């Protein structure tokens, strides 16, 4: 579809998508090229480049103030970029006004029209597109069924709960089969239980429609549940883009490692050591694959990669080892977390699966071990602590 100058009219028979939903359409490819948004001297979005593939579920993840909403608003057309360009299916759209972009947007605070009923809210985009009344009724029915609110058409938004209102907002944003659906922390105002359920609903709707989704959240668990790929934002820039597994196993920066999932961070001076590097931590030498620029390094190890052994155990070849003291344990049913303290006072975290629990207790002296190849070597970044403490 070229960059349409009017909202794309719905064809009589929308193509059936993967899940056979009647609202299904084809997702668009979105390209952000060196996009920046400055407010005075401050760059809210700083040279962001990102490609979202057709039908992909892309999450923009980052702490509050990292530029996610501004980026999404540039894509939606609510905010004009200071520089850079934006393409949808290859056509530049920076100068296309929001109402001609044919994108669906779901806002954190629902943004339902309070003076219109649920059905009238959902009819709103259809009227703008000149859809005849009979077809409108049909589409509204389908959209409400998709979000399981079939009976609520005649209610006013104020008569619905927060979760129901957000589902109406989703129905309103998908009823015209937009080629892109943008969501800005849509579950941010809801309680945990409702959020978990609605996450699955959103995932199901994405699978049914085949539309390209761009989803903003600061909640890493939510990002892991939903996304095909995640773009991690920090200070207006993208630190890393990739599937959740890749970000978790091979974080590119210390910030990404700490923002996504739990980890133990071991800092020290590094030197080259054959194929890998040697890092001095707590008067011991640890090894890690690969090299980095600069003298200060941080080794990241995920908790399930760490194991505890009796104190004094010598490391086998290909393993790292550090002495540690058990500071606490958290029993989680299917697993157990051990909190350890290293000789320099820094914390370490071990996760043991049920059935493979060691018999250590709080106060025990132990040896912490892990494979050299499970160490992720990254340049140290002193700024990161500020974000997480």
């Amino acid at each position: 579809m070229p960059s349409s100058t009017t909202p794309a009219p719905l064809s009589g028979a929308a193509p059936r998508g993967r899940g056979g939903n009647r609202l299904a359409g084809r997702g668009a490819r979105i390209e952000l090229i060196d996009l920046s948004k400055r407010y005075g001297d401050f760059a809210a979005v700083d040279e962001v480049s990102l490609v979202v593939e057709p039908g992909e579920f892309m999450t923009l993840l980052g702490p509050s103030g990292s530029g996610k909403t501004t980026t999404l608003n540039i894509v939606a057309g609510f905010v004009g970029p200071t520089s850079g360009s934006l393409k949808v299916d290859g056509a530049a759209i920076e100068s296309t006004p929001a109402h001609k972009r044919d994108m669906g947007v779901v806002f954190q605070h629902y943004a339902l029209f309070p003076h219109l009923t649920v059905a009238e809210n959902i009819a709103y985009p259809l009227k703008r597109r000149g859809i005849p009344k009979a077809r409108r009724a049909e589409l509204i029915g389908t959209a409400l069924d998709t979000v399981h609110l079939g009976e609520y058409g005649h209610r006013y938004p104020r008569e619905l709960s927060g979760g129901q209102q957000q589902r109406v907002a989703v129905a309103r944003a998908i009823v015209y089969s937009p080629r892109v659906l943008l969501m800005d922390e849509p579950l941010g105002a809801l309680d945990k239980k409702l959020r978990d359920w609605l996450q699955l609903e959103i995932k199901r709707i994405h699978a049914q429609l085949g539309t390209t989704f761009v989803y903003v959240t600061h909640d890493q668990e939510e990002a892991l549940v939903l996304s095909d790929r995640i773009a991690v934002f920090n200070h207006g820039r993208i630190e890393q883009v990739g599937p959740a597994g890749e970000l978790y196993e091979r974080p590119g920066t210390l910030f990404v490692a700490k923002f996504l999932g739990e980890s133990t961070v071991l800092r020290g001076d590094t030197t080259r050591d054959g194929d890998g590097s040697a890092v001095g931590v707590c008067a011991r030498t640890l090894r890690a694959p690969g090299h980095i620029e600069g003298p200060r390094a941080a080794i990241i190890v995920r908790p399930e990669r760490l194991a505890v052994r009796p104190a004094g155990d010598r490391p086998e070849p290909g393993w790292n080892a550090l002495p540690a003291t058990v500071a606490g344990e958290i029993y989680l049913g299917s697993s157990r977390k051990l909190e350890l303290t290293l000789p320099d006072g820094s914390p370490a975290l071990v996760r043991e699966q049920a059935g493979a629990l060691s018999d250590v207790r709080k106060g025990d002296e132990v040896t912490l071990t892990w494979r050299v190849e499970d160490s992720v070597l990254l340049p140290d970044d002193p700024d990161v602590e500020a974000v997480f403490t």
Partner: protein
Amino acid sequence: MSTSAPLRQAPETSMSTPRRRTPAVGTSRLGRGLLWGLCGIVGLWLIVPVLVVIPLSFTGKPSLKFPPDSWSTRWYANFFADTAWTSALWTSVEVALLVTVVATALGTAAALGLTRARVRGLGAAQGAMLAPMIVPGVVLAIGTYSVFLKLQLVGTLAGFVMAHTVLALPFVMIPVTASLRGFDRRLENAAASLGAGSWTTFRSVTLPLVAPGVASGALFAFVTSFDEVVVSLFIQSPYLQTLPVKMYASVTRETDPTIAAAATMIIVLTTTLVFTATFFVARRNRAQ
């Protein structure tokens, strides 16, 4: 005419002073009694002219003696039999309706611009538009008169509408601005994302949601024009007079109780308008 004074105060006070909690004084029995007494006196003070005028309009004698010692409706009959009175009434209604339309449209547009534009001198622009509320009527009247003389607008319908629109503008801008402040602008982004251009968004989302403010602005515009007397005295001609001007002329020349009948009708009309509007706005607010 006395009816409009407290009305005019209403939007001004609710706007310019952010709503404050009443301080915790006067909670004692004595304090509360004193407060009630004071309110009673102020209320009485405001309403006494009305309590005099209404009985006076039903007097049986051709004098303005109060209290009347006989009763009749002859002054109402007199009002409607005399074309000088009825044409003045008609002129007033016509001017007030036109002013309502023009001032509501302009005042709403001005309020939108002033709440949203990001340019220098916004405060000055707002001050200029609210000035007619503060500048003494006589000053405005003289200025208007001298300009209208040059433009040959004295004694014309267009002249009355223009002059009254200037006076009515602040009374539209204030309630509309208050409504706009409470309006969630994210709804406009939502409308845009759904395919509505800026005019459609205004018509289908913004306007319906600030309608109570616009409606009360329209009402104040009507009332402002309908009982305006100072400026109107200057720009009238013997051929085109509004009702208050005719009343003023009448009371200075003769002591004819027809004027009391006219005043009573103005009171009834304006209070009916205000009460109906208040009722509808209150019902709407409860619904939302």
